[in-house]
């Protein structure tokens, strides 16, 4: 019997395949059918709404997981069933604070950060803070901007001097939103917007932009696999966790749970992080992360969870965005439209 897993595709799914699917099948005899989606939350919601669920496991952003969980479209997952950490810590304690939620078991933490092509800047003249991204005088040229209010508004506020810890308080007020958009206005004329994760490295490689927001894993891939001189700027990035959910009505819910237990174990989680530079949510897994797969470069310093990378980082607030996404989305679109 096979289970169907819906995920992001691309190098993310490739890492899953190597770290999870193959060994899982080998161990349990349960086959895995891998399906890509732009964002699995959309098809899963459609499947549940239509009463026609074909997905057993899906990889969700925490915000989507919380939203659909509240809407009764995901199965609650009992965290106590999850395997203990490698060091014996019970699962509930082994996962980073607040990452476990009613319906989702976290798989990784990714960051949306600013990245640049180091070869384009003189030694020491590279951008060094999130404020630099919004400083078109010091760093003239186009920049790649994620076409979404989420992340972008937060970054704008941080660049405008709001400490990470206060970002959502400020953004919860009308003035704060205005302030964020005002900051965005300063780079509006230089922005190239992207939607798909594959675009930022392409934009950097083409020299279309001097710097760009990007998912950190993409930049790292380009640097390691293709030897591109791309760097991630670990300042003012917004990180978020994502993980596995089981849609309500999944045809093979039991096997799905088996899979989730397997994949979110410390050993497997560490293997996953070696293949793609997204941080593990398991405390006990962090020390197990070795070198980048197939190289002798240590992976840990390239993860969003590496303590030195976390000095000015913001955890994306799922609570904030489930409430405000529609409104701010419309405002963002209106802002894009206004020239």
């Amino acid at each position, binding site marked *: 019997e096979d289970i169907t897993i819906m995920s992001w595709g691309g190098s993310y799914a490739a890492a899953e395949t190597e770290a999870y699917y193959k060994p899982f099948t080998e161990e349990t005899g349960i086959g895995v059918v891998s399906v890509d989606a732009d964002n699995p939350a959309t098809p899963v919601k459609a499947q549940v709404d*239509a009463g026609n669920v074909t997905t057993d496991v899906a990889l969700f952003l925490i915000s989507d997981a919380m939203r659909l969980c509240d809407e009764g479209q995901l199965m609650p997952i009992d965290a106590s069933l999850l395997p203990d950490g490698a060091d014996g810590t019970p699962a509930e304690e082994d996962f980073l604070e607040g990452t476990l939620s009613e319906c989702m078991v976290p798989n990784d933490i990714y960051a949306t950060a600013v990245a640049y092509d180091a070869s384009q800047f003189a030694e020491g003249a590279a951008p060094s803070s999130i404020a630099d991204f919004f400083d078109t005088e010091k760093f003239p040229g186009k920049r790649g901007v994620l076409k979404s209010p989420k992340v972008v508004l937060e970054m704008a506020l941080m660049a405008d001097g709001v400490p990470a810890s206060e970002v959502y308080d400020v953004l919860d007020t009308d003035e704060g939103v205005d302030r964020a958009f005002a900051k965005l206005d300063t780079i509006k004329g230089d922005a190239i917007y992207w939607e798909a994760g594959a675009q930022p490295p392409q934009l950097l490689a083409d020299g279309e932009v001097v710097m760009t927001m990007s998912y950190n894993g993409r930049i790292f891939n380009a640097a390691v696999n293709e030897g591109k001189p791309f760097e991630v700027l670990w300042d003012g990035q917004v990180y978020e966790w994502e993980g596995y959910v089981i849609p309500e009505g999944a045809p093979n819910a039991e096997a799905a749970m088996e899979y989730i237990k397997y994949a979110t174990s410390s050993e497997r989680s560490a293997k996953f992080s070696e293949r793609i530079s997204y941080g593990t949510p398991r405390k006990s897994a962090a020390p197990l992360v070795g070198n980048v797969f197939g190289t002798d470069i240590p992976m840990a310093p390239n993860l969003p969870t590496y303590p030195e990378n976390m000095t000015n980082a913001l955890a994306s607030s799922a609570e904030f965005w489930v409430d405000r996404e529609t409104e701010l989305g419309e405002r963002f679109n209106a802002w894009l439209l206004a020239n």
Partner: protein
Amino acid sequence: MALPTYASQLERTWHFIYLVICTLVFVFLIAPILVIVPLSFNAEPYFTYTDKMLSFDPEGYSLRWYDSLLTTGMQAHEAVRDAAWWSDLWHNADWVKAAKNSVIIGFWATILSTVLGTLAALGLARPEMPWRRTIMAILISPMIVPIIIVATGMFFFYSNPCAIVGMDCGRLTSTYTGVIMAHAALGIPFVIITVTATMSGFDQSLIRAAASLGANPRRTFFKVVMPLILPGVISGGLFAFVTSFDEVVAVLFIAGPDQQTIPREMWSGIREQISPAILAVATILVIISISLLTTVELLRRRSERLRGVSPR
């Protein structure tokens, strides 16, 4: 298109400009296709002409993307390419599976839309056809409804088509049948348009002639009507096939993991991972297209010969 001797200076100038404009438009049409062919040999995973490529350094070129078409999705990339490897390829390589699916879905969607469309066009061509305009409008509507709406609507309906009569007869999503039906619906307007156009030039007295010679309607259709409208049917069928072959949105919604098509693979290629593999696919498809177009042209010439239309 040579100008006559008496053409005025103005006419000559204008004619020259006209030819230049036409040339530019043709260049515009073909440029994007020319651009992708060399890029499919890029050694780097970007859609960018690298310096090495521009200086014709062999290192700037590689066949890796063509190779990746074979290896993506395979269990063992590096294995020896023996018989087992090739048979594994047939079952596991993503692009090969996608190509298979595209062909299967395209084929059946084309058959379905061409057969039903031709039949309907025959009816629409009859002078006594009732409610012609309304029916024509309904049949052409899949072309005029934005695809995103079509795809979503289809997804919900296909999830449980019998729900409308209060029953449950399983789903059409994630099935070949579902994708084929969706694509057939999208291809039908093209078949209707081309075949009715052909039928409008069809000499109805041939049908009467066949009847007067003793042929029953079925025989008349297969022996007289069909051979003569075949070029129009083929051209409509090709439109339908291309529609299916290049369709991604409906596949995105309706197909399951088993029905991933070439455009669907390309779509994740563009969205999720940079890979000139899609350019390699495109290059291969361009070559196939050229062969197909040549075939169509040859068929057309044949049919003109048959109908006795001498080439102008």
